């Protein structure tokens, strides 16, 4: 397995890369997002699978992002994503709106190695009107007059997510969050942070294997304890709602966001006493 450290993992992502990331109800690697901010990544094209959350707002706010393709950007209970909203208003990012199953479908097309895949629905939505890369054809299996949307395959350069653990072979275990498997299959390579590395081979264990992504898809792994934080990690830790609320409050302004970065990403300033 290719075990490295967090900053080296971030160094593997060239400027301009397209990154697929799960949102806050799945397993985002917030640790790697922070490391990308520290490395000063630029021009990233983020794909939210199928939506985007905390890590996306952070990367957008830090100026790392050129484009966001997603079905929604939100901090959940903590409200709208402040730096994303500001960047959109200022025209600093290109926004490619999608709808959740369309993101899944475009990745599944890549997973399967086909140039497109169909999806029902969407016809009549302005999302379709603003996606010249999506096409409507007449269903060849109907008698005619049955329009259906075809979505192009989407192949991210990197899948980026956080897993519970890796084994000696470089397989990672992340349980039922199979959207991360789709991300890994569809992407050229995946960069994964984990809580811990354990001896053995998960694929020889019938209980663990079903929740695994095999090393075939994974470029490199770094240990990042509590690497999903402030997001929950299965039954390992819960969402840190206070941390997110604090972020949402400070990130309302560019200045507040900079201060938050200094404390929580660059750690050049101590956190204010809560």
């Amino acid at each position, binding site marked *: 397995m290719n075990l490295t450290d967090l900053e080296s993992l971030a160094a593997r992502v060239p400027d301009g890369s397209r990154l697929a990331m799960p949102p806050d109800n799945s397993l985002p690697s917030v640790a790697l997002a922070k490391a990308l901010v520290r490395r000063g990544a630029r021009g990233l094209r983020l794909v939210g699978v199928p939506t985007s959350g905390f890590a996306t707002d952070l990367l957008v706010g830090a100026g790392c992002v050129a484009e966001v393709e997603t079905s929604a950007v939100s901090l959940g209970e903590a409200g709208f994503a402040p730096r994303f909203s500001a960047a959109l208003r200022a025209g600093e990012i290109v926004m490619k709106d999608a709808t959740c199953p369309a993101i899944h479908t475009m990745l599944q097309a890549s997973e399967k190695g086909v140039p497109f895949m169909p999806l029902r*629905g969407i016809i009549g939505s302005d999302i379709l009107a603003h996606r010249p890369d999506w096409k409507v054809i007449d269903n060849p299996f109907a008698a005619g007059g049955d329009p259906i949307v075809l979505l192009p395959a989407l192949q991210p350069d990197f899948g980026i997510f956080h897993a519970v653990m890796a084994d000696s072979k470089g397989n990672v275990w992340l349980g039922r969050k199979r959207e991360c498997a789709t991300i890994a299959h569809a992407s050229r390579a995946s960069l994964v942070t984990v809580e811990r590395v354990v001896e053995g081979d998960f694929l020889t264990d019938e209980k663990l294997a079903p929740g695994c992504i095999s090393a075939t898809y994974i470029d490199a792994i770094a240990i990042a304890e509590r690497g999903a934080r402030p997001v929950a990690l299965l039954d390992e830790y819960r969402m840190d709602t206070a941390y997110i609320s604090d972020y949402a409050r400070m990130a309302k302004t560019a200045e507040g966001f900079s201060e938050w970065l200094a404390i929580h990403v660059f750690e050049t300033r101590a956190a204010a006493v809560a």
Partner: protein
Amino acid sequence: MSNCKPEELLAATICRLVLDPSQPTARHVAVGAASPVPAAACYLAQKLGYPIRLSLLARNLGNPFTDGTRELFDLTGQGRIDLFFLGGGQIDGQANLNLVGTGEWPGKGVRFPGSFGSAFMYMMTPRIILFREEHSPRVLVDKVDNISANGTSPPGVFRRGHAQALVTGRCVFRFHPDRARFSLASVHAGETVAGVRAATGFDFDVPGGDDTAVPETPAPSDQELALLRGAVCDEMLETYPDFCARVFNRKQAA
């Protein structure tokens, strides 16, 4: 029932819409992430003895999906989800939903989070109940600025269903896909038809054209209230702690 909270009225009202015998039976209902009131409504239906399968997207522990977040949409594509809930930053008189934002695309005015799965779910689910607590001309508009999900479709476009109703903090509208218009089904206690009209940016029908014939939304029964505050709250505590604290005054054990 004077001490019934607005959320309790809304949950009981939505519960009746879920159980509406004139509609195809809801065997499997999915509830989106930020929807505690619809979730309470569905749990209430369960506790009233109706065998509804309820899949809550928001559940972290015991999340019902084992094939990733794709599974909800696949289930819906298969026709296995009978009823879903949608809202919108703007909802217009033809039941079009705007979850993208106001002003020019993609929300140059106020940007909302985004469409989520609405452009798919709205067309692929046999029954949709629209729910938006804020009832104001800002939300209920004549024409949405941007259509995330369209309320009706031209003939020939594959579509399994439409909005069954729109429930707000003031009233219940029924939707009529044949004429792409809402009609006012009931107003909540303390509201009037005129008041609803003033707070609504779109034109709607009143059955028989008679404002005085619009009934009041029935209050929750004692049994319903007891269930909401008891068994329903028990189910929701883990997933919606803030809602349970605010509405039912119940806190999760540490």
